[in-house]
């Protein structure tokens, strides 16, 4: 459950988003420049809203009224940016283990098996293909034991055949780990296959929230 009621100013652009999401996977859908990534940044704590509140499963991450503004490293929100940003000076294993907290984190073997990256553990991140990088970044975020997973255009950087192959991994994360996912997309097909709620964003406003049939 994500409660969002924020105003974020970014130069002359103003994002106003008030939405309550109770979904396994929610897609932020809309044209580029609509403010989708801004919403993710605000939830992750990478951009401070002008006013408002953000709560995940009842835990308040930000509230301008109460003076609450948890720093990103205390939010327990996994974030995979569009360019995945694997740490280039570390191997795959070190990347996966970077956010591990004793007791909280997912089991490495389980994550690695689910994403089928067992064979990549000793590789350098610079030697990975686009799809492999995507899965390692996903694994790295999961290993930190997040209570919410934010994905910025998880399939935009990969070509269409690869998209077919990565989608099942995202579905597994959604169904097996029960970590709720909020992700940015501007691809209708991708939305239909993963999301159960679609938040339509346009020009800095939430236009509508739709349930996806059949999911």
């Amino acid at each position, binding site marked *: 459950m994500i409660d969002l009621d924020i105003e974020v100013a970014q130069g002359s652009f103003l994002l106003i988003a008030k939405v309550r999401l109770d979904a396994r996977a929610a897609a932020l859908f809309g044209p580029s420049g609509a403010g989708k990534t801004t919403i993710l940044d605000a939830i*992750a*704590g*990478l951009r401070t809203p002008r006013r408002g509140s953000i709560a995940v499963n009842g835990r308040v991450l930000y509230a301008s009224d109460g003076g609450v503004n948890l*720093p*990103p*490293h*205390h*939010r*327990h*929100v*996994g*974030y995979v*940016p569009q*360019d995945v*940003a694997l*740490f*280039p*000076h570390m191997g795959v294993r070190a990347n996966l283990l*970077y*956010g591990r*907290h004793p007791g909280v984190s997912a089991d490495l073997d389980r994550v690695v098996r689910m994403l089928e990256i067992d064979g990549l553990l000793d590789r350098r991140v610079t030697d990975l293909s686009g799809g492999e990088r995507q899965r390692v970044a996903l694994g*790295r*975020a999961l290993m*930190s034991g997040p209570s919410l997973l934010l994905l910025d255009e998880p399939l935009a950087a990969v070509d269409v055949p690869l998209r077919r192959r990565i989608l099942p991994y995202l579905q597994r994360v959604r169904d097996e780990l029960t970590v709720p996912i909020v992700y940015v997309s501007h691809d209708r097909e991708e939305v239909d296959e993963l999301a159960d709620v679609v938040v339509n964003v346009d020009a800095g406003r939430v236009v509508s929230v739709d349930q996806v049939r059949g999911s």
Partner: protein
Amino acid sequence: MEIWRITWFTVACAAAATALILPPGVVLAWLLARRKFPGRVLIETFVSLPLVMPPVATGLILLMLLSRRGTLGGVLERLGIEVVFTWKAVVLAMAIMGLPLLVRTARAGFEQVNARYERVAATLGASPARIFLTISLPLAWPSVLAGAVLAFARALGEFGATIMVAGSIPGATRTLSVAIYGYAETGQDAMALELLLVSVAIALAALWTANRLVERSAA
């Protein structure tokens, strides 16, 4: 032998000065590259000041601050610490003159690190200190190293500030450059020439080492 004593003393002081400014200088470079805080521009200006001021003027400021009647000097004297005209003054002059080169070079390196890595590290639960040590510093390492070498080289050649605040006391505060000047001025050309050759050799060795280190860490 006099030459080796002067050489050893100069290299040791330059190394001490570099070691002294390395931790605060690198942290400062990171803060200037990544954080916005009040007084930022002021700090930046003060750190860079020795780069544009005549070194002798910087030396005079240090002398006024650190002499017995100076603001800091009075406090230090009560603690029983004497700085002016000792090896400590040499190290301090070298440190102040080297600091801007370290901070500016390291800062450029930190600015080149993609901020995405630091942001992602934060969402993975890393504190700012851990991000600095595990992400920013390793990725900016070649620039930090280059900055340290520049500061060290600057310290080796430091003349103006040193002579003001430490003087030219044989066996106590006389560095390579100060000694070269002293020998040349008193007509001891042979000694001056020998020290000159030593300076050239040290400079070449330092540059060669720096290039090797930067190449290796970039590979």
